[in-house]
Structures are given as C-alpha cells and as structure tokens.
C-alpha cells in the first residue's frame, strides 16, 4: 500500500514540477527515457544475466524512428510505435541465439553486437550521418503541430504514462509464472528443465521484453533530442544502463526510474557546480553503494515502504 502511495507521489511530482518549473521538462524526459531502457536491463539482471550491449536496441530504435520521421513524416506517436517495434523485432531475432549463452559469454556477445552496430553507424556516413548523427524535424503530435514547449509537454505526458504503464507491466510480469521462471534461471536452470520448463524460451521472452523497453526509451530519447548519434549505442552507454539499474535497485521496477532520475540530476548538478565531473561523483557513489547498499536506492527505501527486501544479487 505504501509503495502505491509512493509511486503515486512520484507521478504527481512528475507532473507538477515541470509545470511549475518549465526548464525541468527536458531533464525529466531524458530521465524517463533512460529509466525505461534501464528497466529493460533490470529485467535481464533478474535472470542473473548482465548485458553490456543493450544500448544497441535503444540506438536502433532511435535511428529507426529518425528514418521514419525523415522519409514518411510520421506523427510522433506513430514514431514511438515504429521505433519500439523495430527494437522488439531485433530483440526477438538476436535473442534466438543469444539465449543459449549465460554469464560472461552472454555479456560479451551482446557487447560485440552492439559494437558492430556502433561501427556500422559511425562509418557508413552516407546512409547514417556518420559520427555526427542524423537530425529530424519536430514531428506532429497527434496530428497537431506544436511549438517546442508544447511538444515537450505533450511528450512528457506520454512519457510519464508509458513509464507508469511499463513499470506496472513489468511488475505483473515478475509475479507471473514466466517472470518467476525467469528469476529461477538465475538460481537453478537445471531444475527448470527437470520441471518441464524451457529455460531458453523463458529467457527469450525476457530478452525481447528487455529489448522492447530499451527501444521505447531510445525512441523517446530521440524525440526529445531531435537527433540520434552512434554514441547512443556505445558500450559505455550500455555500461551506464547497468550502472543505473544497480544504483536504483533492480528488485522493483520503480528502482529503474529512481536511479535514472538521480543519474540525470547528478549530471546536471555536476555540470553546473563541479565542472562536469559527474562520472567521478557517481562512480565513487556507486563504489560505496556496492559495499554498503548493494540493493540500490530502492533497497534502501524498501523497508520504509513496507516491502520485504528481496535480494536480486548473489551473496557468495
């Protein structure tokens, strides 16, 4: 109950603050899109696997939406669908063989794929805009052409709704049979097989979900910026997703967004006050957290929220 109130309070803040302080819209949008991608990575962490390449789905979705915007002048809402669908499809295809790997091999293969995408996007400039990326015109929103501020407000509203919906869906997934089986992959895949459950199929479902969430985040990001670059798919970006997933706490969907907001605002704060040394600050915070509070921000809050603290990470 307290958790619902908490989430409700967060959503309320998400609406009220940008209305009161307009320049908050962009950072909120960035945090929400990042949060969605982080949620995708958190799903994989639930299975005990870490992918250092999931940014490729965000990047792919972003570029897909960009091409769709440039060639077909689609409405922003349709672009969201297009980008996300592209990422879901890519996730399904890559996942077909990716789900046969575990642990470090899984991580490495994802990394390798993402770097291939990065290389292709960076080098085939004629088609992809190269390292400078591609821009696109601000699309219509629900068939209405809005000015910059209006567009951002509309996008923010949609992003908030999507984040809420995604979080809720992921939590339901976690509690469903497939979600519980996904978590069981981490502790005992043998047993799953001897229960007649195909771990590969379950993991495939989880991988597609992760790719879709990353794609959704990537598309929103692209729409916010009006620009996509290969950097969106760089390995450091994937690492940051994992970073934020752990920072926020991967045991509950809300953790992804908590982490993303802290991340975004630390970047802003550091830019203004610490000459941009946000990596230094966040890096140190995370190192301390790993020792002191490995369940992340959500882990710290969970007791206050009346939730049973559930460890998602192994203690050896």
């Amino acid at each position: 109950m307290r958790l619902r109130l908490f989430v409700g309070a967060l959503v309320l803040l998400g609406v009220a603050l940008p209305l009161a302080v307009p320049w908050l819209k962009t950072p909120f949008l960035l945090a929400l899109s990042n949060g969605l991608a982080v949620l995708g990575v958190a799903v994989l962490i639930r299975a005990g696997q870490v992918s250092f390449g999931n940014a490729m789905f965000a990047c792919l979705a972003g570029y897909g939406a960009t091409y769709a915007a440039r060639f077909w002048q689609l409405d922003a809402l349709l672009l969201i669908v297009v980008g996300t669908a592209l990422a879901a499809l890519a996730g399904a295809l890559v996942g077909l063989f990716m789900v046969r790997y575990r642990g470090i091999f899984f991580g490495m293969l994802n990394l390798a794929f993402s770097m291939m995408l990065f290389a292709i996007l960076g080098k085939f400039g004629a088609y992809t805009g190269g390292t400078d990326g591609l821009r696109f015109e601000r699309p219509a929103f629900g068939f209405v052409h809005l000015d910059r501020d209006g567009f951002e407000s509309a996008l923010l509203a949609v992003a908030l709704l999507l984040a809420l919906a995604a979080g809720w869906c992921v939590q339901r997934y976690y509690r469903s049979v497939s979600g519980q089986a996904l978590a069981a992959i981490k502790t005992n895949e043998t047993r799953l097989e001897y229960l007649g459950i195909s771990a590969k199929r379950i993991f495939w479902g989880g991988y597609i979900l992760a790719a879709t969430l990353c794609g959704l985040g990537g598309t929103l990001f692209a729409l916010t910026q009006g620009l996509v670059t290969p950097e969106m798919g760089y390995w450091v970006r994937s690492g940051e997703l994992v970073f934020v997933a752990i920072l926020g706490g991967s045991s509950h969907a809300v953790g992804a967004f908590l982490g993303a907001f802290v991340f975004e605002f630390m970047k802003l704060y550091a830019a203004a006050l610490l000459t941009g040394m946000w990596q230094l600050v966040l890096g140190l915070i995370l190192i301390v957290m790993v020792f002191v509070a490995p369940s992340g921000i959500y882990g710290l809050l969970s007791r206050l929220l009346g939730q049973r603290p559930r460890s998602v990470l192994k203690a050896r």
Partner: protein
Amino acid sequence: MDGISYAALLFLVAVGLTLIFGVMRIINIAHGSLYAWGGYFAATLGLAIAKFGLSPGLALPALFVAALAVGVLLGSLLEVGLLRRILDKDPILQLLVTFAAFMVLEDLQRLIWGVQPYFVSEVVSQLGTLLVAGVTYTRYQLLVLPLCAIAVFLGLRWFLGRTPIGRQITAVTHDREVATAMGVNAARVSLLTIVIGASLGALGGALASPTTSLVPGIGAEMMVLSFAVVATAGLGQIGGAAIAALLIGISRAFAIYLMPELEVLVPYLIMVLVLLVRPQGMFSVAEARRI
C-alpha cells in the same frame, strides 16, 4: 606491416587484461584507463624532457618509465583499494565496480590533462624511417612496437614458467583456493600480477602515445578493443591473446586496404564469429556456460 604494429599494441594491452582476469577472475573494465593514463603520462614526460632541455635520448626510455609508474601506482591502488575487496561479491557487482573505477579515472584524467589533444611524437621522428618493399615506414612502428610485444611475450612465458613466483601466479590462476591451501600467498601474488598487468596496459598507452593524438575517449576505445582480443582468444589465455591480436591486427590492415569503412567493424565481427562458434574463445580449455 601496419597491421603487425597495431597487433603488437593490441597484444600488450590485451595480455595485461587477461593476466588480471587470470588471478582475480574479474574483468577489469578500468584497464582502458590504464592505457590512457600511460599514454598521457608518457606525453607529459616527453614534454617535460623538451621543456627542461634534457637529452632527447631519454625520450624512448621515458615511455617505459611512464608505463611503469602508472602501472605500479594505479595498479596497486586498484588492487588494494578495490579488486581485493570485491572478490566475494556477485559478478554483476564486480563488473560494476570496475566500471565505476573506469568512470572515476576518466574524469580524473580530464581533470589532470584537460580535453585538448596531446601529440608528443618526438620519439618517432628521432628514430627515423625505413624503406621496405617500396613503402616508407617509421622505424618506431616497424621495430619498436613489434619488438616490445615479442619481448613481453617471451618474457612472460619465461617468467610464468620458470621462476618460482611466476609459477605461483600460474597456480593461483588455475585455482586460487587450492593454491592458497598449498601455501601460496594469494593476496601478494594477486597484487604483483595486477601491477604487471596494469603496467602492460599502460605500456600499450605509452608506446602508442607518440603515434596518435591523445584525447578523452581513447581509454574507452582501447578497453573494448583489448576485450575483443581477450574474448576471442579465451579469457586468461596469454599465447592465445598474441594470436588473436595478430588475427585482428592483420584483418584490420586488410580491411583498411580493401574497404576502409570496415576497419572499425572488423575486430567485433571476428569476436562475434568466434563467440558464436566457440563461446569460450579459440584457445580456452574450459567449457563455456552454454545451454
């Protein structure tokens, strides 16, 4: 030929990474930072030599001094401050800690050296050029880099195979618990290995610094490249790293010759192809966790 000097560089950095993995079973994502710091510090020394009017002959040795300094200081700091303390943690957390260390070192690097490019190439021009089969190469590229790589390779083989401490390192790499039970001081061995590995990574950077412009981001770039070499060869494989480095280095040279756009793609394409067929790497003996 160009491929060989590039392969030499890749090998130096990759072998450091693989050594560290061998003793700690942790992939040190901060390894790229060691490369970058080695390069930047070497550049600083080079500039100091010029500034204080010291003998130009010191330029080449200065590279090695820089590498050693960075390797010893940063390496021991990493081991004692971080790696040693996360041995018992979830693998995901281990990766994250080294990633966080990478982030910290990236910012520190920018703090110390700024964002403007450093290009301290006196050493290369000092050594002059060589004409081979109608193509002009710098002596540095043709001789210094490959010779260093070969020296390191042979040196490591001798060290790990013949010296007592080297054999202890090999023992810990195979099985830390068993080695400890047999009386090996795993902590001391780890520290030494990491300092060696870090120094090799830094050496890569130091040796690369006269040939390339040092900018923020080279650490990240080399991190993922050296990891591609290590993953292709098999984690912990030293000889394999040499072969993988050669494979990637020469393929890249061919790519540049045939279709320059493919240059950046090649290492990762090779990595994907190898991992799909043999996830444990070309030379690893262990079986991969594949279902």
